[in-house]
């Protein structure tokens, strides 16, 4: 099997599996006062220190959560509510148009229920935010901005955002900055302390750790209203019995991912480039989405004109190659990706896209397997695209048809 969906989840590391299972044999609620409780607490605190060290943060900045979605929700809702409580004029939320749904849907919920005014910051054809657009948006009324949220690297097209520049702008105005760094850790150098980010989302299962364990790195001086009330286990910002085995596994996975990052990123970038150029040799009109150089090392996001992403996915799956369509799955129905639409792609390009994401188990054999299959798969998917007539360029009214220039201006080729 050729697994090329590491951006969705990456295989758990053997070291992590054995550490987590070992910890699962041990009883103890980290909040209990007896010996077993203290032993569990010690494991959690050591894991907190190790995770903090791996991400260049302070242990007291680590708030363990149930994963990336919870961390995003906690940051967006919690910081918005806290900062608005401090100053009722702070109702603006500035977020990039290419955020994950965990951020987008959270800000939309705040707009619907908590009077937030949301501004979606535009991105260029590569999916990159223009800091000048953020600056202009902030400067319209800096006092009214509750929070800025821009992801570190995009989960779909892999484009890396200029976080340092963004952090300078928010710091200048004393505005809180959140960044979803779920895809970045282990792929790019990530220092929480140096980044200027106030709150950062990370999760274990993208690093070879267990599912359902994540953290929000939250600066000590940033106040955040809790979403889950109860025992107040995590700094009174997050309640719930701590998942000791998951947390221990998360810390180990993060440590290993950071230790191996430089070598791994170089290896994956080389494989990725081989994959892209190999596909291009087979399918000359393939289009690369996302930034040609400022992108995640393991991400290849491609559009195949005339194809439906779901046909490509099925045909590759039947050949033992697993990847993802470029679209977010909403309620079981594939919708054209909001990321590609924000980048200016037309719907056929958005729908005809595939994300192939490499990770620690990927090898040259995986790349060759794709290159070996892609021509036949694309040819067949193209015929199916014509046959089903759904949203192929030819079936659209002239006004909706993509023009050649539109297609090539979108990120283009590397």
């Amino acid at each position, binding site marked *: 099997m050729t697994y090329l969906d590491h951006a969705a989840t990456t295989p758990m590391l053997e070291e992590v599996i054995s550490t987590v299972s070992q910890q699962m044999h041990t009883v103890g609620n980290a909040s209990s006062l007896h010996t077993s409780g203290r032993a569990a607490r010690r494991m959690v605190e050591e894991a907190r220190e190790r995770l903090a060290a791996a991400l260049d943060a302070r242990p007291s900045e680590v708030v363990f959560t149930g994963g990336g979605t919870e961390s995003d929700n906690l940051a967006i809702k919690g910081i918005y509510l806290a900062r608005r409580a401090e100053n009722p004029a702070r109702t603006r939320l500035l977020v990039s148009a290419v955020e994950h749904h965990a951020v987008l849907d959270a800000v939309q919920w705040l707009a619907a229920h908590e009077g937030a005014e949301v501004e979606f910051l535009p991105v260029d054809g590569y999916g990159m935010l223009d800091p000048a657009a953020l600056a202009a948006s902030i400067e319209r009324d800096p006092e009214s901005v509750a929070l800025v949220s821009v992801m570190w690297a995009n989960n779909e097209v892999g484009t890396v955002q200029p976080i340092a520049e963004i952090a300078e702008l928010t710091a200048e105005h004393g505005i809180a900055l959140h960044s979803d760094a779920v895809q970045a850790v282990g792929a790019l150098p990530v220092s929480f302390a140096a980044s200027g980010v106030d709150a950062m989302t990370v999760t274990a299962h993208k690093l070879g750790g267990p599912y359902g364990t994540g953290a929000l790195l939250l600066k000590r001086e940033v106040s955040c209203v809790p979403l889950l009330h109860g025992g107040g286990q995590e700094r009174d910002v997050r309640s719930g019995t701590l998942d000791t085995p998951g947390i221990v596994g998360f810390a180990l996975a993060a440590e290993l991912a950071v230790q191996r990052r430089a070598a791994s990123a170089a290896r994956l970038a080389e494989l990725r480039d081989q994959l892209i150029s190999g596909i291009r040799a087979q399918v000359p009109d393939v289009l690369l989405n996302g930034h040609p150089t400022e992108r995640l090392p393991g991400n290849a996001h491609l559009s195949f004109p005339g194809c439906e992403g779901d046909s490509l996915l*099925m045909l590759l799956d*039947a050949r033992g190659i697993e990847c993802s369509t470029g679209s977010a799955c909403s*309620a*079981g*129905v594939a919708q054209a990706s909001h990321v590609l639409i924000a980048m200016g792609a037309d719907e056929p390009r958005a729908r005809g896209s595939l994300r192939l994401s490499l990770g620690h188990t990927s090898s040259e054999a995986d790349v060759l397997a794709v290159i070996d299959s892609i021509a036949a798969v694309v040819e*067949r998917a193209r*015929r*199916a695209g*014509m046959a089903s*007539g759904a949203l192929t360029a030819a079936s659209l009214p002239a006004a909706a048809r993509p023009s050649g220039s539109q297609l090539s201006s979108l990120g283009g080729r590397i």
Partner: protein
Amino acid sequence: MRVLAAMSGGVDSAVAAARAVDAGWDVTGVHLALSRQPATLRTGSRGCCSVEDSHDARRSADVLGIPFYIWDFAERFQAEVIDDFVAEYEVGHTPNPCLRCNEKIKFAALLDKALALGFDAVVTGHHAKLIDGQLMRSVDAGKDQSYVLAVLTAEQLSHAVFPLGDSTKDQVRAEAAQRGLAVADKPDSHDICFIADGNTQGFLQKQLGERPGDIVDSSGAVLGAHSGAFGFTVGQRKGLNLTTPAPGGEPRYVLSIQPKSNTVVVGSARDLEVDLVCCARPVWTSSALTADFECLVQLRAHGMVSGAAITLAADGQLVARLTEPQRGVAPGQALVMYDGDRVLGSATITSAERVCMTA
């Protein structure tokens, strides 16, 4: 053989897919997403279009151990089925959207895509038989769906597989339970899948707006008012809200809908009876018939079967002279021709009248 099993999330398509697996074929399950904003949970008697239904289909595919995907046909469905449905009502016809969906989606858009992707056939859970390429009624007369399949050409049928035609619905449910399919006792769907609350008139009014007009009798006398002629169907008795009672108090029925004058014509049950049905666009499910012939005809999805003498006109029109007059023959519905249980073909009803008053 590589086949694509269309899985609605209901019990029939799940068992059909299971039988395809048993036949030793390479089966892939596909659920058609027909709405861009599907409801989360199934409501009422709709059976295929909610997220819950797609989950049911997925769980059945899991149990069968076959790959499963959701394909988005929402746009095609809107254009070919829903828009057509509204347009047909607007001109005073009574369309059958299930038939249209088979003709334009399942055995056109889906089948074409399946063939292009390398599949040999599409398997569905329709209650009908295919024997040597001949479309036949199901053994379960109450569940028979040959009527809504009679719009398919021989070419389309050559790539269709209906594994349930020899089983009754009860047998299908029992088999589903035996196979451990959770949908075994899922209720049947009845209503039009894209009209969530089952209120067709309300749906049409939302699409077409209010268009008030008169309800008249055959002489043109005004008996009442309506808010849109498109909301009526030939043979309808309820919901007329007539202000003038009929002489003798006998019930009145919709005889015809006149879209140009926006009037609805009503009359007695006897006025409703017709014995001459004119149709257009015949489709032959096996070989095309060219000479006049006698056969059985069915004029609605359920019931309304009569003997008929069929005359084929040179201009593609088809005329059926019924041996027994029928009530409620609505333009837009299909006339399906049978030789016993074997489907010969179908045509779209354009008009109907009473010519032989002694019949």
